[in-house]
């Protein structure tokens, strides 16, 4: 059980630890500033000052709400893959491609050997951690997802690309650990898209985390998990952070067929709707989780990052998580 590992790391958490998946909505002043920065109207220092201000707001907000493991809210990031692609060596920014509806992003192109230029996220983690005594998660995107969400013009195949990226992300993990980070989340939302490549995803995660002293979480969402379960449990992490509520907890049925052997950060609120769940609904979801995994294994959080919600909606969704967890502890 991973709680032992957390204790060994000096991290003491209550039953049903509460956390969030990573991103929070950017306050209006920051969204506006990012637009102005892109147009060259303000400098990087001015933008960073506002990103720090927004980060401080979200750390304070999480503390007030009573969350147990905090995130920095990713005020300094846009897309979770592009952020790393813009900083790691070997990438070129691609043109716009559609994400959904009228949403587009610059999909990166791997045009050379990928290399680690030095710490990418560490300063932000150190800043966020300096604002609170509670543990702040290090937040990275996994090698398999960066590979899957990038075009590749350099490596011979997808496996070679994923492993090369894993070696790079490992260096970032090592840098976070050296800075004092105990809990590191490595997001792999692409984990289930090609079930036939699960072995590659597992090898990449092993390359990233093997032998390193931290509690590892991976977040995955939008997936056909029935096609990769229970094989996905071989991923070298301690905790799977999964979107559960958006699909009416249907994943629980999948988990009934084989014991869920890792900790689970159980998504108890749907992040893709403006509608707020009732407190009783959220509590009921935690109870449902306990039908399949033991209470020691369960963390409570939203389905996914909250960046597409308004700040008020995000705060209310977080409150629902905390309230449900506290009720279950009692």
């Amino acid at each position, binding site marked *: 059980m991973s709680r032992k590992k957390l204790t060994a790391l000096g991290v003491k958490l209550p039953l049903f630890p509460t956390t969030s998946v990573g991103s929070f909505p950017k306050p209006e002043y920051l969204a506006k500033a990012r637009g102005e920065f892109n147009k060259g109207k303000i400098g990087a220092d001015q933008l960073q000052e506002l990103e720090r201000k927004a980060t401080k707001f979200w750390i304070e907000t999480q503390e007030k709400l009573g969350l147990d493991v905090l995130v920095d809210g990713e005020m300094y990031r846009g897309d979770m893959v592009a952020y790393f692609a813009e900083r790691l060596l070997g990438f070129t920014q*691609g*043109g*716009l*491609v*559609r*994400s*959904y*509806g*009228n949403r*587009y992003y610059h*999909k990166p*192109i791997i045009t050379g050997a990928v290399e680690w230029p030095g710490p990418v996220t560490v300063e932000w983690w150190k800043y966020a951690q300096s604002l609170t005594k509670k543990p702040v998660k290090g937040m990275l995107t996994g090698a398999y997802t960066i590979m*899957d*969400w990038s*075009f*590749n*013009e350099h490596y011979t195949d997808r496996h070679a690309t994923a492993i090369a990226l894993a070696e790079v992300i490992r260096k970032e993990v090592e840098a976070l650990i050296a800075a004092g980070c105990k809990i590191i989340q490595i997001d792999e939302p*692409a984990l289930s*898209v*090609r079930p036939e490549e699960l072995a590659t995803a597992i090898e990449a995660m092993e390359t990233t985390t093997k032998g390193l002293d931290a509690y590892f979480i991976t977040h995955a969402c*939008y*997936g056909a998990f029935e096609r990769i379960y229970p094989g996905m449990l071989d991923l070298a992490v301690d905790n799977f952070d999964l979107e559960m509520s*958006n699909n009416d907890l249907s994943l629980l049925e999948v988990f009934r067929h084989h014991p869920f052997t890792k900790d689970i950060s159980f998504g108890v609120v749907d992040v*893709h*709707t403006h509608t707020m769940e009732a407190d009783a609904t959220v509590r009921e979801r935690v109870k449902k989780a306990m039908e399949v995994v033991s209470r020691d294994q369960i963390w409570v959080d939203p389905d996914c990052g909250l960046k597409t919600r308004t700040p008020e909606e995000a705060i209310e969704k977080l409150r629902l998580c905390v309230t449900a967890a506290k009720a279950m502890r009692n």
Partner: protein
Amino acid sequence: MSTPAPGLYLSSTGSYPRVGDTPDLQILRRTIAALDRGDRTTADLLDAENEMTRRAIGDQLKAGLDIVTDGQIRWYDPISHLAGKLENVKIGGLLRFFDTNFYFRQPVLAGKPVRRGALVVGEYSFARNALGHLPTPGEKAGKLSIKPVLTGPYTLAKFSHVEPSGNGAPDTLASLEHRAMAYAEALAAEIAALAQAGAELIQVDEPAAIKFPEDWKIFEQSLGPIVAARDKVREGGRNLELALYFYFHDCTPLYDKLVQLPADVIGLDFTYEPKLAELIQSAGSPKPLGLGLVDARNTKLEDPEVLAWQVERLLPKIGGGRAYLGPSAGLEYLPRDRAFAKLELLAKVRAAMKDLKGPKA
């Protein structure tokens, strides 16, 4: 009914990027955003869609294609664009579209999906008209055609959700088979209407059929109404061919079954399994094939000489000596400049072929 001449045709596989990086290629994106803010009208949106559709067709002509599409510029996604126009269908939350990083809105069925009006006939008619008004290269005069594209009934059904029992949805809809047949009936009526509007080749995409082979019988059965609609059009004396396209998964395990399907053309994605070309070379195909040899999911440009060599080896093994060279899937997964480069690549492949008979513009 006349059959197209043998040869290698250059064909779009469906979608084309709706935006580019320059301001003039952002009009649709900006108009939709302005419409959402209440600063534009639906008439403005229609203008922007029309303009980008003309540009998509223009790019295909410029690249030298023989068979073009409207680029599916107006489509929110391949699922909800069609399903959302059917009665008893609401549009729900976002789901990932296969192994892409693109998301579609899931149809939620409150009852049997029923076609009460045209789905894409208006879009097809606009595109056909636009094609007629765009400058046509001299050697292509009278030889160009436009192909409407539909998502097939099985794929629509597979990605639809049924409202929980008690909310009015009939229990029968819980069955994938019933949902697929309901969509098939709706699409059959659309096929008849498209033929009436002048379509002579209609592409029906069924990517889910190769991803979920366990449902093969349901998929096969759902083709019944569509094939019947095609046959009825032909009995009426009109030309109509049905092309079934499969992508986003390895086609080799089902290859033997795919080429026996009652369609006139079978379109295949070659990018998931390089051995597909070898398989076709050894097994042959009893009917014309869509050769999705150009990777629609990666920016890297293939070597036209290598692809030409592959096509030269495949063409003699293909029924009727007729094939349609195209991207492995719709091109909207690429940035616009790369999508156009992939289209140009198609013409380079054909130009690089040594002994090609038939269309070689």
